């Protein structure tokens, strides 16, 4: 009988992969507590949540599927413009606005997935970069749609749930971003701990072997790419609603590179790595570019080089290595 118990162990461990653990509760409570602890920085904290959501969307691709994208801002930007255009058209309810932003970005992601599914390594990086630049350039030219260099602004966003008006201090903005971020996070968490999510990890580990298990890779890629684009679109939509303006910068290469940095900084493939990386990145940018915007670029480059040369696995990987293995 003892044999049966010891044999059951790996089984229960695999079933427990998706179980909610206490450090997660601490993490989210700490985030929520920021509302009280840093009342003067709520706008910045809202930016952290938005960036975290965006990094989560890339984590789905890179961390769980092994698909690197150098143009992920495309979907972020599409979501932002979609939300802003909807608001400009007179529909100011924010939650449906987010759904719309996610849906538009998701459609574009679905279309792109057919292009992406074929490509690997350098070609993949180059094509995603080209798509990002393409969109940036298109948005720059299509002034009737995007406002070009001036961007879109001057639209109203209705109170969240009809109750909470967006205020100058970012109270509503932070809570709104935190709430949306938490819900999306829960959904993604559920997704990556499903059998489908496990199949994605197999895809990341050995893309050529997956068809021999009977799995259609193109379908996997289409699902994930679409979902990732939806999440990126929601993040973009949040930005458009919270700041009540959209600038061309949402589609910039710097934003695509930035989200990649957040992810490798925090540690890809863990969900929490994306959030932590985003927080560190946004706060560091705020502090360092407060000193001098020119220096920020220098620090950014240095962070990147350091992550690649010494910090394998990002901050989360570092935290795991320090006390040995605890899992």
């Amino acid at each position, binding site marked *: 009988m003892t044999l049966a118990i010891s*044999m059951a*162990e*790996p*089984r229960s*461990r*695999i*079933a*427990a*992969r*998706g*179980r909610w653990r206490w450090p997660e509760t601490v993490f989210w409570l700490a985030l929520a507590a920021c509302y009280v602890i840093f009342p003067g920085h709520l706008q910045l904290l809202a930016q952290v949540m938005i960036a975290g959501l965006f990094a989560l969307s890339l984590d789905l691709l890179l961390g769980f599927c092994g698909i690197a994208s150098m143009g992920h801002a495309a979907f972020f930007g599409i979501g932002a413009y979609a939300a802003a255009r909807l608001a400009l058209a007179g529909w100011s309810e924010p939650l449906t606005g987010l759904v719309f932003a996610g849906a538009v970005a998701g459609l574009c992601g679905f279309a792109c997935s057919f292009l992406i599914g074929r490509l690997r390594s350098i070609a993949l990086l180059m094509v995603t970069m080209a798509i990002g630049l393409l969109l940036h350039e298109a948005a720059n030219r299509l002034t009737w749609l995007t406002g070009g260099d001036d961007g879109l602004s001057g639209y109203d966003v209705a109170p969240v749930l009809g109750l909470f008006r967006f205020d100058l201090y970012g109270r509503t903005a932070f809570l709104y971003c935190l709430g949306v971020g938490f819900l999306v996070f829960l959904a993604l968490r*559920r*997704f990556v*701990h*499903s*059998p*489908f*999510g*496990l*199949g994605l*990890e*197999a895809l990341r*580990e*050995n893309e*050529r*072997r997956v*068809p*021999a*298990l*009977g*799995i*259609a*890779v193109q379908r996997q890629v289409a*699902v994930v790419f679409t979902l990732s684009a939806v999440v990126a679109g929601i993040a973009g939509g949040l930005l458009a609603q919270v700041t009540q303006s959209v600038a061309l910068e949402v589609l910039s290469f710097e934003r695509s590179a930035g989200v990649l940095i957040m992810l490798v900084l925090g540690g890809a493939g863990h969900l929490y790595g994306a959030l932590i990386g985003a927080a560190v990145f946004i706060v560091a940018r705020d502090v360092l570019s407060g000193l001098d915007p020119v220096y920020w670029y220098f620090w950014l480059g240095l962070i990147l080089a350091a992550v690649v040369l010494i910090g394998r696995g990002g901050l989360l990987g570092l935290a795991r290595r320090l006390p040995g293995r605890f899992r």
Partner: protein
Amino acid sequence: MTAVLATRDLRRSFGALEVTAGVDLALLPGARHALIGPNGAGKSTLINLLTGALRPSAGRVVLAGQDVTDLPVAARVARGLSRTFQINTLFPRLTPLEAVLVAVCRRTGALARPLRRLAGCTAEIDEAHDLVARFGLEAVCDRPTGELAYGQQRLLEIALALAARPRVLLLDEPAAGVPARESAILMSAIAGLPRDVAVLFIEHDMELVFRFAERITVLVAGRILREGTPDEIAGDPEVRRVYLGEDDE
């Protein structure tokens, strides 16, 4: 008895070179069939044509009565044709249990439902665990595959292929690279493959071939030179000539 896997005049060219030049192969249910031949005989190409990794220039592949010539790899696996690989191509950071679980979930359809929880797939987890244990891997089943011994990885290759519950199993050099001290367990694993699965194996190790094969096909220059029982093949002067390389005399 009708063949579970059959090819009809299968051909494949690379440029001007015809690597597979009209192969007719038939595998009966439960067969133990070995495919041998000198280097460059086109064995790997034939396997790739059978699994769908390559498309034939001409000819058909029929699996359990259905023409699968135009189906991609994954669809053939779903219809009962699994394979192992010559060199371990596993999932280094997944555990053996996780890897087999993916394959089992694919078969049961759980993989297609992103809203299902892994914790809810107890039937699949139990089945994956049984399969892993059957190959003597229970002690290492939740360690990353990349940390396993080579022989254990070869066993996992076979377990992964069996997780699809295939009708036909293609073993591509199952013993390649396994050190002598680990080979006994592999041999017994091959001997213990379910009898209702037809097995086609490509192998250089003649000991393995003559121990397990009930029929042997000799492939030379993309064509079938001989097919017969192990005794017939071992005694065939033509086959001996090819294997001793005496054609230059």
